[in-house]
């Protein structure tokens, strides 16, 4: 009997430690949503033309740094994250007004966040998006890059990478996921996917996804473009 206890004791201890670690990771992930949600609310208070440059280009990367930086212990990062996002929520309209004073500078900011130009001429964020945009263009599909999408079932707004519009006005979305190995990015994507589902966008029906970890697979891009074309009818 005692021998069994000697064997089971350490096993149970290891199991409990592992469960504790899992619970801790779960709590951390859920707590991180609070400042992210606050920051998303702040972004909604910005003029639409400044959304990308300020929220996506400046604020979100800073919050990411706060939440995932080397010195980010759980409580500290939560407090710093909430303070960062809450203050921006309060003053976002004022930041917008300051920038709106000069259109040239807004364009300059946008250029910094979207440094790559497609064949069709618009600026996009990554080289992979250039490839996708050019691929859609080459097969004659009309797309819009990062066009805001208002929810029909849910309140709120999401920004798909590409919105492809068919001849009859039907819409297909294409999301390219470049950082799925980042847990925060993956978590954000799963929530976005759920939002799409609630608002009538179904995977491989009117929502298509490509992903990359490291290099981009051009064959996957071409296959997806053909699926998009077929879905549009």
């Amino acid at each position, binding site marked *: 009997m005692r021998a069994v206890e000697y064997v089971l004791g350490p096993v149970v201890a290891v199991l409990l430690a592992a469960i504790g670690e899992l619970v801790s990771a779960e709590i951390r992930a859920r707590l991180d949503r609070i400042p992210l949600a606050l920051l998303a609310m702040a972004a909604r208070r910005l003029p639409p033309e400044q959304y990308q440059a*300020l929220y996506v280009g400046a604020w979100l990367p800073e919050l990411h740094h706060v939440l995932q930086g080397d010195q980010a212990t759980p409580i500290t990062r939560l407090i710093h994250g909430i303070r960062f996002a809450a203050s*921006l929520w309060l003053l976002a309209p004022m930041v917008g007004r300051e920038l709106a004073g000069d259109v040239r500078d807004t364009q300059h900011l946008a250029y910094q966040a979207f440094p790559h130009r497609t064949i069709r001429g618009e600026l996009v964020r990554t080289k992979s998006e250039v490839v996708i945009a050019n691929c859609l263009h080459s097969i004659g599909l009309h797309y819009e890059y990062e066009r805001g999408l208002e929810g029909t079932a849910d309140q709120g707004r999401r920004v798909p990478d590409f919105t492809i519009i068919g001849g009859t006005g039907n819409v297909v979305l294409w999301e390219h996921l470049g950082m799925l190995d980042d847990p925060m990015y993956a978590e954000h994507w799963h929530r976005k996917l759920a939002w799409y589902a609630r608002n009538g966008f179904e995977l491989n029906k009117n929502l298509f996804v490509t992903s990359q970890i490291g290099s981009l697979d051009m064959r996957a891009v071409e296959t997806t473009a053909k699926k998009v074309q077929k879905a549009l009818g």
Partner: protein
Amino acid sequence: MPVDEVRFTTTVARVLREFLEMPSEPCYGFDLMRATGLASGTLYVILARLERAGWLTSEQEDIDPVAAKRPARRLYRLTPDGAQAARQELAELSEKLRPPLPVRSRLGYQGEAL
């Protein structure tokens, strides 16, 4: 290129003071918040104002987000004209805020004689 005039407050001065510590080095928003003790909202209002007036420029960090496993952050940097204007404004503000001399010193030699 000459810079536009900026409404110069003590919070603007705190931000510019931080930039002038190393004028050629770019700064991140969160690092500026910590160094100046300003809240993020206040800081980004000031950064927007300074950038619009040509005192600052900003650029996206040159990293591969996939390799770095994080999004590129925005970096802010003083322009040469902005640095010159900032030094001048800070010197003027410092002069204005300098405590008055004690009465005896202000009276000088005449005061000693009384």
